[in-house]
């Protein structure tokens, strides 16, 4: 990549999570030379893949905080944005249920907080209305939020990046920033894939945003990772949940409490726990928490305790709150550094960061605009390259596709009905993400009940057809190789 080393980018975004990609896409409206650097083998490999996928309305955070303001602003932006980008989502509504009368005041506090922040449509409902809204939930009272919704956080992240790419932005994967220098009004970012120069830098490095800031000489932040474990049910578990159901949040819980959330495909997600851990990469599941998730989910939805689970996953929250004491609330930090003008830090963007991402992106664009001349591109395309799904198509459309291109006739994933055409398209993504997990996130291969048992050998073949040697086939880059070469030479 020798050529890019000498060229100067107007803005480099560090971190390919949903916030970084939202910033990149927002900036791609303007006539700027843009680059996003991601340390992992794909986008959305960090916080953005390990959460509940809920579009929050904004009543869980204190009115007046940046969290509340960007959440409420983001709520208004994210639905049209998802439509524009063709990212599947659904406005489901949400219930926060109180199992006993004595919890009702907490619901009223939440409603009051939400009302103060301008969250639309909140109301407290009783038992019969709970049943009408969500027959699988139970409770004495509930706070109903009609504008809450669900979305796939990694699909949104990838779509934002693809849209930005289509508008000229570059993305480099496996490019962790390891050193920063500043001279002559330019930041120089050293990565294993080259040194990149930038007039402005947006640090959206999530869990590692404190460390990246420190590289630039900004020693203002400290991130505390909080682990959250999840379980996912089979789509065929016999329970169709219509909307997320949350418990009344406990004052001691650093999260929103263990809740149940439907996916767009019909699974139910249970979680997350909230536990401070020492290592930002410690995404292990534990026996104790898995048992607790099941017990708490069964309280919200009797019957869930007996279902079968097809997957577990774990996310890490980048909290600014020290678990050993001190402040209980840490607000989002979205600020330009005083010591390093032109360097914008986005720190502590945990929940509701997914919903807030488009609003944060707007704030960042405004900050960049005070120093750089932002001229809107007349040729900006707000959509992203189209992605067709075989499983979503009707009979006539399926037949037409197969007759046009036989690859639509070759089934690769039997559980989620994914064809070879979709896998090939995913592998030819503009960023060069060619891991097993990259295919999984783009196509749903391996997300079904056989968890890749059937499709893995098939994807391994296709990867080789696409020019990836066996030794370089990985689960998610780095040392996560699947194979140690071939047998018998």
């Amino acid at each position, binding site marked *: 990549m020798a050529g890019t080393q000498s060229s100067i980018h107007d803005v480099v975004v560090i971190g390919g999570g949903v916030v970084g990609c939202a910033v990149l896409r927002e900036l791609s409206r303007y006539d700027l030379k843009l680059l996003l650097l991601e340390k992992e083998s794909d986008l959305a490999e960090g916080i953005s893949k390990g959460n509940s996928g809920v579009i929050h309305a904004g009543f869980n955070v204190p009115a007046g905080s940046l969290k509340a303001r960007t959440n409420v602003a983001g709520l208004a932006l994210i639905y049209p944005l998802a439509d524009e980008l063709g990212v599947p989502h659904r406005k489901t509504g949400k219930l926060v249920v109180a199992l006993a009368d004595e919890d009702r005041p907490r619901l009223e506090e939440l409603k009051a907080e939400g009302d103060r922040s301008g969250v639309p449509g909140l109301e407290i409902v009783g038992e019969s209305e709970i049943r009408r809204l969500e027959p699988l939930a139970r409770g004495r009272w509930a706070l109903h939020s009609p504008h809450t919704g669900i979305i796939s956080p990694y699909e949104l992240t990838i779509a934002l990046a693809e849209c930005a790419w289509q508008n000229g932005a570059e993305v480099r994967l496996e490019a962790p920033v390891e050193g920063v220098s500043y001279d002559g009004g330019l930041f120089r970012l050293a990565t294993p894939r080259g040194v990149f120069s930038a007039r402005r830098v947006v640090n959206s490095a999530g869990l590692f945003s404190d460390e990246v800031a420190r590289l630039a000489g900004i020693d203002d932040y400290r991130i505390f990772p909080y682990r959250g474990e999840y379980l996912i049910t089979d789509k065929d578990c016999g329970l169709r949940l219509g909307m997320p159901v949350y418990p009344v949040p406990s004052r001691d819980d650093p999260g929103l409490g263990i809740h149940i959330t439907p996916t767009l495909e019909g699974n139910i997600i249970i979680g997350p726990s909230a536990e401070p851990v020492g290592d930002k990469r410690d995404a292990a599941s534990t026996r104790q928490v898995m048992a607790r998730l099941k017990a708490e989910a069964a309280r919200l939805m009797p019957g869930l305790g007996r279902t079968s689970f097809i997957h577990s996953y774990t996310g890490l929250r980048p909290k600014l709150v020290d678990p050993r004491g001190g402040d209980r609330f840490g607000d989002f930090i979205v600020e330009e550094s005083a010591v390093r003008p032109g360097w914008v830090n986005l720190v502590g963007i945990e929940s509701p960061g997914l919903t807030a991402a488009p609003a944060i992106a707007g704030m960042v664009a405004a900050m960049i605009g005070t120093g750089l001349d932002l001229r809107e591109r007349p040729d900006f395309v707000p959509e992203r390259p189209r992605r067709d799904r075989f499983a979503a198509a009707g*009979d006539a459309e*399926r037949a037409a*596709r*197969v007759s046009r291109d036989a690859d639509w006739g070759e*089934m690769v994933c039997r559980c989620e009905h994914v064809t070879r055409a979709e896998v090939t398209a995913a592998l030819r993504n503009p960023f060069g993400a060619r891991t097993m997990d990259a295919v999984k996130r783009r196509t749903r291969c391996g997300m079904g009940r056989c968890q890749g*048992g059937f499709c*893995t050998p098939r994807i391994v073949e296709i990867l080789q057809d696409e020019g990836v040697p066996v030794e370089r086939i990985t689960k998610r880059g780095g040392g*996560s*190789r699947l194979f140690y070469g071939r047998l018998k030479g």
Partner: protein
Amino acid sequence: MAGQIETCDVAVIGGGPAGLAAALGARRAGAGTVVLIERDRTLGGILNQCVHDGFGLFLYKETISGPEYAERLSEDVARESVKVETGAMVLDLAADRLLRVNSRQGYRLIRAGAVVLAMGCRERTREMIEIPGTRPAGIFTAGSAQNLVNLQNLRLGREAVILGSGDIGLIMARRLTFEGVAVKGVFEILPWASGLERNVRQCLMDFAIPLELGSTVVEIRGRDRVESVVVAKVDGALAPVAGTERVIPCDTLLLSVGLIPENELSKRAGIELSPLTGGAVVDETLMTSVEGIFSCGNVLHIHDVADWASFEGFAAGERAARFAAGERAAARTVRVSAGPDVRYALPQLATAGRAGVEWSFRVTRPMRNVRIEIKGRTSGRVYARKKFARLLPSELQKIKVREAVEEDIEVGGHE
């Protein structure tokens, strides 16, 4: 396209040992057009990756390898002018026997006079048994590993641990050893092996691979690739016993922790499934709760030996052909339940007054000197009795009732 619906007499879904036999059975019973739909590129199903010996003892009276067994059945199918479609997957099955099929040749709708389900099974995963820990590369189900090693010639790792003593896991322990992988042990949560005795002997003991019963993997470690697993003893309730944990360094974990009949299509057709077998509830003709849809092989219940899946396939194919020709069964009023020490008995339903019905069953635990009896639920009469010197849960056994039965019956064991 949408306007055109192809038709056939019998559609067989799945071209493994059961489906191949079903297609043959249907043709030999006089079905005109028989379509055999297989999602893989070649016929044979899982047989193709079972390169070891031990197939065909009952069907061909000699032991041959899986691919040879598949080849023989496939050759018979070729001679019987069955319409074979490989690389074709049935995506949907409706109760009125309308199939949606996708292949590189096209996406089509097929209406069948009768359908035979022979989709086989899938493997239980790490997530289903909820092993805590990290999610690195290097975790494979035994069957996937078998495919990658035997069909794609890939080296999976250097040091492996195998969880579960199902037959594929045992066979893979031997296979990996042949390929120079150090198999550090096979861990089985139950107090007995899940696979066949001959496999324990020939695949583990002959290679000095340790089999640890009553123990399981309680944690997976390693961020990018498996670095080690933690194993522990379990108590009588199969819960890990604190203090017995042991860390075993390895880069590969194979799971052979059970098979699940793959009944996604059956569910779409509204077929009643048995919680005991995971397969369809069938009568003695192997017909499911939906008229004209039959089931056989591992999609009906997990078999120990491929030959028995084929025998079931022949029978299901024959019955499907007769249904397609207009034959209708009498009411199925005899209900069959599992009694003491019997996990399940199949078929679950039978036609009252029919004589000579044979039941398949499995026991819940290893037993010696057992009497298996089929007893009338109201009369208490014993319709059949069979003695076994030994019975193992890994073995699928059979017992036949010669006379006609008119009441609900129970299959039970007496040690």
